[in-house]
Structures are given as C-alpha cells and as structure tokens.
C-alpha cells in the first residue's frame, strides 16, 4: 500500500507511444526508456506515499474530511467500556486558584 501519490502516476494516454509526464511528452524509445528508469527511481526513493487509487477514503474535500472527526466521541459502541479517572499529584502551590472569602489565599 505504501507506494506512490497521485502526482507521481505516469498515465499513458492519447496517441500511441506517447508517455505523458508532467510538463513534457516523450516520443523516442531512448527517451521513453530513460523516463521509465527515472520514474522507477523516483518511486523507489518515495516508498512512504500511499497510492491514491488504492486508497478509497471517500472525502476529497479536506475541510469536510476534517469535520468528520467531530463524531469520534460518539459512544454508541462503548457504553459499557469502563474507564477510571486517575488523579496525578499537581505541582506545588497550584492546588487552588481562588482566594477565600476573607481574602486569604
């Protein structure tokens, strides 16, 4: 799964024997071979991008995608998952922030 990104795909399309790379069209066999080698090198050097066409996450709008985190707190599946509150001692002198009614902190 950890292969390439959208931007590194090399679609073959249009007229025969044309390899379309971003910003150029390669026609001769030598150029074609060199383009393939360079593409392979780029792919090998970038093993940690997830291939876009294999990743079927449904939201292409990044803002809408981000909004979906809003319901990760939903507890429909975990009503009985037991959790405990742990109280770790606080820094000295930070135990209260209000002064008492006679003004003594």
């Amino acid at each position, binding site marked *: *799964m*950890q292969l390439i*990104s*959208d931007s590194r795909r090399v679609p073959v399309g249009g007229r025969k024997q044309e390899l379309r790379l971003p910003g150029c069209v390669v026609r001769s066999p030598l150029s074609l071979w060199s383009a393939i080698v360079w593409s392979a090198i780029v792919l090998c050097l*970038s*093993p*940690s*991008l*997830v291939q*876009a066409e294999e*990743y*079927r*996450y*449904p*939201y*292409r*709008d*990044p*803002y*809408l*995608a*981000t*909004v*979906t*985190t*809003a*319901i*990760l*707190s*939903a*507890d*429909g*599946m*975990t009503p009985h*998952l*037991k*959790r*405990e*509150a*742990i*109280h*770790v*001692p*606080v*820094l000295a002198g*930070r135990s209260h*922030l*209000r*002064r*008492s*009614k006679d*003004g003594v*902190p």
Partner: protein
Amino acid sequence: MSLTLYRQHRPAPLLFVLAGIGSNPYFGLGTYVAWLFHRQGFHVVILPSPMSWNFALAASRSGAPGYAPADARDLYQTMQDTLTLLRTRYHVATTRIGFLGASLGALDGAYLSVIDAQERKIGIDTYLLLNPPLDLNYALERVDAWNALGAKFGRDRSKALVARALAIVDTFSTERRDDPAVFARLSREFKTFTREEIQFLLAKALQTALPELVYVTETIEDPADRRPITKDEARQRIQAANRVTFVDYAQRLAVPRWRKQAVGLPTDLQGFARQGSLTPILEQLRANPRVHIVHNADDILTTRQSIRALQQALGPRVVVFPYGGHLGNLWYSDNTEYMLRTFGAGSTR
C-alpha cells in the same frame, strides 16, 4: 490533574494517548483511540492536552503551555508520575509502553521521543505521531484567519452557525464509530455549510478550551489578593477571555513567560514557533527508529511542501495518505489498520 485509564485485568502493553489542542481525557478523539486499542488488549491512558487548563494548572511549570519543548518536558514528568501511580496504587502491569499523539499532541510526542531517548526513564518503544503541525506559524495564521471570518459573518450569524453545527453533531452522539454510513450522513449534513462557514467552525472548535486556559494562565501569576473569590467571579473572567485567539494568548501571556525560562530563547512568537516546530529535532527523529509519523497530503493546517520536506528527511517512517484533511481519516479502515499494526496489535477486519 485528571487522566483516564482504560485497563486490562492482566499484564498488557500500555498506550499513552495525547490528542490535539485543548483536548481533555474524557471526550473527543482520545476516547476513540482508547476504544480502538482497549479492545485489542491494551491498557490505555488518555492525557490532557498541555494546552488545557487542567494541564496548565497542575503540570506546566511555566503556567503558560504552548511551547512544545517545554510542554514535552512537563509531560515527561507527568507520565512518570502516572506510571508510578498505576503500578503502585492500581496494580497495573505493563509489558511495554507506546505513545500515540495527534495534531499538537503529535508535535509534543516528537519532543517526548527526544527526551526519552536521552533519559530512558520511561522506555517508550513505539511512537505514532498523527498529523503533527509542521510549521506552527502557518497553522496559527490559518486558524486566526478562519476565526476572523466571525467578523465578516457578524455576531448573530456566527452564533447561529455554531448552534446549527452543534445540533448536527449532537444527533450523532450515540452512533457507531466504525460505520462509514454514519460518516456519510454527517458529511451530507455539513455539505449545507459553505467552505468559509466550515473554516470558521473549525477555528471555533480548536479554540473551545482557550478561555479556561487563559483564565488559569492569568490567575497563576496573579497576586493572591487579586484572585477571584466566588465562582461567579471566575466565570466572568472566563467569559471575558472568550474573544482571545491563540495569537493573543501567545503574544500577551505565553511568550513573556517562555522567555523567562532560559537564556538564549527567541524574543517573539515567530521565533518560538520556529524553535518549537519539528525542524530543530529532525536529526534526532531520523536517528530514532521508534518514531513513526502519519500525515495527509491535503492536511489543512500544513503545506504540501513541508510534508514533502518531512518525507525527505525521515524517509519511509513517514507515511502520507493522499486524503483525509486534518485527522479526518482516523476512523477509516485503512488508517485504523495502520495504527494498530504500528503497535503490533491485531486486525479489526
């Protein structure tokens, strides 16, 4: 300081979870991660965000959190205290320890990895850092710009937008978190908002915990005779802090205190943001095979260039998903599988 523990009744790996800015241990993304890992046999402890009033009051030595190197140092102490408490009072037996951080929690986790690699007082064996902000200045400017949309919308429309969004989210409060259809329904509801409205809502969500943090940060430094007496007084001061933005907080309250912590520190927010980003510790991260980073190419708080630079620096230990925005794909099956696999847990499929 309050944390939450989800425990197993046998020796098990323990996962510390630190979610994003202002998050608390009882709500939000941390509880989702706890659910995911607890059912795979992990003890899970959710830490409060250093940018929460809880942490600022109880654990932040500066009292003004937000500078990751200092926050990580305070977190490190908190985690040691927590482990001691868990082992002595709660008899929790751990087989190994992992750390999962998201967003600002991921940035704090990166600094934590540097400290633990040097001091080995905890011995964290795996870090998974999800969508860390790579350029804090950029992220702060983005959130501030989104927040400023409130002025364009006006007070009434802004309030109505927030109320409408909360009402939508509320209707999903008992839904399943592993059902893509639920997320599809939610996204249909939010498609009725414009892009700018969603940006404004995201800024509001990120700043939810800020007024309480501002109150605590101010009050820690107040002379004792100026501290509030009644709950009403405290509430009024929290309300007064409602309009404070991250940049206001940092410039007015935090930077002056951060500068007092040591000599040779930056003099302004931009300097602290640069020095508290990932860039200064890239070499240590590269040298630490325990650290794994996940990002999304379309993260709205990070530029594509900085993600590419991170990949070039850390190579295959950075995995970039093409979509997902900021943490928006944590629930997606490919991502949950990846998270579980990183910590050696089984599959959910």
